[in-house]
């Protein structure tokens, strides 16, 4: 208990930073991932190629390398200046979007082709079919893997500690310098993550209940 209460100045703001990092990159990667999934199922070959290339590259690169790129290499390109926190959000978004894309795409594959054909027969455009017929059903059927990907994202945020974002992953090094018992500190950090993941699991269960598709 002492380790937690003597260092509340660490645990509080650092976990807050973790949550900020998670929420921003979750929103970013859900949007980017869905767009990528749309690219990957689009009838235009160039779009499909772009989507496939993105997923292949982003999903096969270790996250630390993605981070290292945005923190050490990207500034040398002199495009837009990214501070460390936005750089971390970008890295997490770029990486997680590839996984979200594949989850969403697998959801799209669960929607019977007949529905798209029916839509086309009614005169709907590709965008309308995707946005109003296919995607809503696709997202409903992939709630569990989607949340799993988000849980992975939540835990991946700890990598930002090595790249100048003071979040929960950095608590251990701070405790070590303060001479606190690190194992106890790590237990508290783990407990923090369990609580955060529990919240996500709760969201998953309630969404599953509300959105369950009768087939």
């Amino acid at each position, binding site marked *: 208990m002492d380790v937690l209460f003597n260092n509340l100045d660490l645990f509080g703001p650092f976990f807050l930073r973790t949550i900020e990092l998670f929420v921003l990159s979750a929103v970013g990667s859900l949007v980017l991932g869905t767009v990528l999934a749309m690219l990957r199922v689009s009838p235009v070959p160039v779009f499909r190629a772009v989507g496939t290339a993105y997923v292949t590259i982003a999903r096969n690169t270790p996250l630390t390398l993605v981070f290292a790129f945005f923190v*050490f290499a990207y*500034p*040398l390109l002199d495009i837009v200046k990214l*501070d*460390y926190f936005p750089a971390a959000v970008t890295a997490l978004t770029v990486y997680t979007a590839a996984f979200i894309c594949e989850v969403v795409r697998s959801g799209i594959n669960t929607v019977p082709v007949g529905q798209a054909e029916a839509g086309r027969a009614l005169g709907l455009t590709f965008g309308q079919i995707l946005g109003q017929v296919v995607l809503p059903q696709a997202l409903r059927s992939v709630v569990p893997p989607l949340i799993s990907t988000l849980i992975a994202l939540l835990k991946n945020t700890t990598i930002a*500690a*090595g*790249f*100048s974002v*003071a979040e929960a992953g*950095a*608590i*251990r*090094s*701070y*405790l*070590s*310098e*303060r*001479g*606190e*018992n*690190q*194992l106890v500190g790590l237990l508290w950090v783990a407990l923090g993550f369990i609580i955060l993941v529990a919240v996500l699991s709760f969201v998953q269960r309630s969404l599953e209940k509300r959105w369950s598709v009768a087939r």
Partner: protein
Amino acid sequence: MRIRTLAVGVLVGGLTLTTLTACGKEGTPSTPGAGDQSGSSAAALPSYPVASGVDLAGSPVFAKMKSAGALTVGAKDDQPGLGQKDPTTGKFGGFDIEIAKLVSAGLGFDPEKITFRTVDSGAREQTIANGDVNYYVGTYSITDKRKALVSFAGPYFVAGQDLLVRKDDSSITGKDTLKGKKVCSVTGSTPIQKIRSENLTEPGNIVEFQKYSQCVEKLLSKDVDAVTTDDAILKGYASQDPDNLKVVGQTFSTEKYGIGLNKDDKVLRDKVNEILQKALDDGTWQKIYDATLGKSGSAAKKPTLEKY
């Protein structure tokens, strides 16, 4: 058939690569900084007579060393002048490394047989407690809180927090001129916690990486304005690149470097203190300093041992 062709191709490719890299290794001279240390100073470094007949009854760690017949010593590998691993030869060099060798000789083990193991700051206490290293020498500041987890022999060196800046930057003269400047150090390190808690610069200007070398890289690319930690470490970097870097020279803390030992091993601690005291008295310590950190041009300040 195709698989076999592929396997042969991979094998041939791999062989060519290894030969190529092997050639490269042989031909390339080591980096200037590291080369200097192992080259010209090798002659100046003192040698340490290996003690014989050392027996420390009641020291579990010593008993372990004795039965293994060799030592594993924890160290840092990215601190020029203190503890640095030469990327081409894989050998460690620097002030801390020499102290580790001195202690090893005093304990009756040939310093050549030491296996150095890189242990990052965050893992030190646990590594020592687990017995993964016999002792640890790597800019390890003695603090009361740490004394609860490990025990310290020494101090064998006294350093102080200072600032490393670009040579042409005259706007930073000490800790009170840091406002509005980006300051970098290792994640969670004592110096950066001091900058944070004393509000020496705005929280948004604090930059933390896993290694000092990454901070120095960012300093040179002007993404940060100062790197802060103990002057000993900073002097090492400044002496590697004196055309672009300088140490401000206004220390604002006292860091006593100790040798980290198992908490329950008072017998070993007393012995290590005895070895250090002897080296301080007979001039060996001074020779080690002159051959390593002394090259940065600053004078040595002999530490006083704390025997607790």
